[in-house]
């Protein structure tokens, strides 16, 4: 209905314009021509629009497998572990605060807190061992190669900053892992190493007290506490932003749980990898 009204309006406008130009009224045949013209134009527009929608839908629905089930499970265990460690670690670090006091007095006792913290630590260590084992597999070796920092990452970073500032009009093209993802991975590796080593010294403080000078224990304690805060702040800024708050993925990037990524985001976020996959597919089809 709206369309036919629109059509009529357009016909009417065109008619008036032509009449003004020619300085006479149009005859019936001419009016018929005008109507056909308008209809054809509208139909063409409609078809183009439908095509575009279909293409977008197709891109959106066409998924690439980004992470294997193994990787998704690793992330899940890691996430649970880190959340447990965070909610039980923060109240110890900020034991003076009113909320820590509230937690320890009304929600769980310090003794329970210590047990949960150790459960979280066990999950973290478990996933660390798992991850190291996985890195030895063929899949793991390939992923590790992709994760290694390269000079390109530095150029990508500079190019991206230029883009953000409006000094260049194009985003750099990322491969399978962008510099920000690589950064997060290696930050996690470093953080886990510090936390696990120092944490074990605190956990088994009886052994530490027996074989190592007390100041080593104190250093471990301080490193544990400092690194923990750094890691938590990185999680609630860097990770939150890239995985949740970023307008591209808001409210949540599900890729790490489903393993899938849409063609659209693949093209936008990992164009080089996309191109390579396409090349490989074409290569596989040719012979």
């Amino acid at each position: 209905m709206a369309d036919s009204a629109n059509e009529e309006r357009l016909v009417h406008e065109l008619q008036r314009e032509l009449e003004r130009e020619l300085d006479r009224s149009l005859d019936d045949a001419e009016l018929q021509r005008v109507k056909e013209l308008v209809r054809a134009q509208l139909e063409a527009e409609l078809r183009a629009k439908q095509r575009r929608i279909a293409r977008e839908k197709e891109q959106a629905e066409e998924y690439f497998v980004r992470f294997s089930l193994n990787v998704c499970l690793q992330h899940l265990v890691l996430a649970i572990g880190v959340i447990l460690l965070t909610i039980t670690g923060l109240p110890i670090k900020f034991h003076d605060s009113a909320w820590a006091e509230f937690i320890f007095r009304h929600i769980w006792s310090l003794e329970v807190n210590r047990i949960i913290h150790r459960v979280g630590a066990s999950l973290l260590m478990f996933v660390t061992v798992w991850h190291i084992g996985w890195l030895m597999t063929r899949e793991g070796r390939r992923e590790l190669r992709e994760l290694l920092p390269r000079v390109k990452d530095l150029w990508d970073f500079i190019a991206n900053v230029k883009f953000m500032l409006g000094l260049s009009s194009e985003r750099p093209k990322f491969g399978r892992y962008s510099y920000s993802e690589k950064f997060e991975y290696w930050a996690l590796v470093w953080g886990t190493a510090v936390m696990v080593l120092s944490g074990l010294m605190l956990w088994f403080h009886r052994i530490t007290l027996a074989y190592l000078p007390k100041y080593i224990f104190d250093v471990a304690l301080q490193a544990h506490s400092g690194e923990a805060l750094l890691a938590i702040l990185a999680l609630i800024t860097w990770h939150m932003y890239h995985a949740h708050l970023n307008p591209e993925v808001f409210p949540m990037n599900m890729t790490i749980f489903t393993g899938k990524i849409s063609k659209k985001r693949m093209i936008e976020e990992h164009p080089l990898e996309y191109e390579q996959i396409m090349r490989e597919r074409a290569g596989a089809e040719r012979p």
Partner: protein
Amino acid sequence: MRQLLALGMVLISLGLGSELSYGQRDPNARCLLECHGTSDFKREVAPGQFKSLYVDYEQFKTSVHKDKLCIDCHTDVTAIPHQRRPEQIHCLQCHYQGNVVGAPVSERPEKYKESVHGKAFARGDPNAPDCKHCHTVHSVRAPTDPLSPVYRANIPKTCGSCHIEIYTEYLESVHGQALRNNILESAVCSDCHREHDLFPPDDPRSSLHPQNVANTCARCHADVKIMERRGVPVKQVEAFKKSFHGIAIEFEVLKSANCVSCHGYHKILSSRDPRSPIYPLNLANTCGQCHPNASENVARGRFHIIPSDPGAGIVFWVYEFYRWLTIVMTAGFIFYIVLDLYGRWRHARRGSHG
């Protein structure tokens, strides 16, 4: 209701001497002149056993109650000489909250009744102290009076008259030594135990309940002025509260260490004293009470450190490293995110405009 209640023979002294300092106009004179003012005035409590009823008026006149009449306290004495034995009276008849005679009370003297001593006394323990054992009866002096048994310098001796072993131990401690050198800001028995509301340490009201020990020591050891005067480091309490032992104690893990688990209590000694439990060579044993594997390694490193304090040595540098790393990284993250959002916003705007 035994013989004890029978009045002893009243011995009237004939030698009213000129040494008596009260005049006939003193309203108390009637009590003293004939009876209680003479030094051998006594009654027989059991055959052959006498109890002195003498009141040293010189002392009385210098006591805090000097303006009171005998009958202000001994209220049931209406006629002098009285015919019956006056009722047993007690300090608390005036020193209670809300009294009208103007007797000073912190709420503490009333708490005496619930204290270890008060309970033992009520049970009839013959050795347990009542007010009079610490304050005397008729020569009560204010705690600020150097002649008072409850003057700071005299308190250990007063308590020590019953707790003799503890008194000798205490005298050897830094606190006892300092007190002997007339340093009155050192700790005496009542600083740790309190004088009236004195409870066993497993009672949460006690100043020495594991959760309260740190605050009890903190009264002095967190006081910068006192500790600077004595040249003793002052951050121990703060450091203890930040340590895992302190956190654990605060949140009900009472088996954790409090100040006295490591320092001892009556014989607290400096770490430089070889007898001290915190003397480096003794430390393995001290920690060993609770950490069975502790070795001499526990003495390698400083104690009571506050990471943000340069005195913490290497720990301070770790602290500083992480502090700056955290500030720089977090600021960087936030800056990057803002930049990224700005880039996207600009891009989106340009995109929609053409």
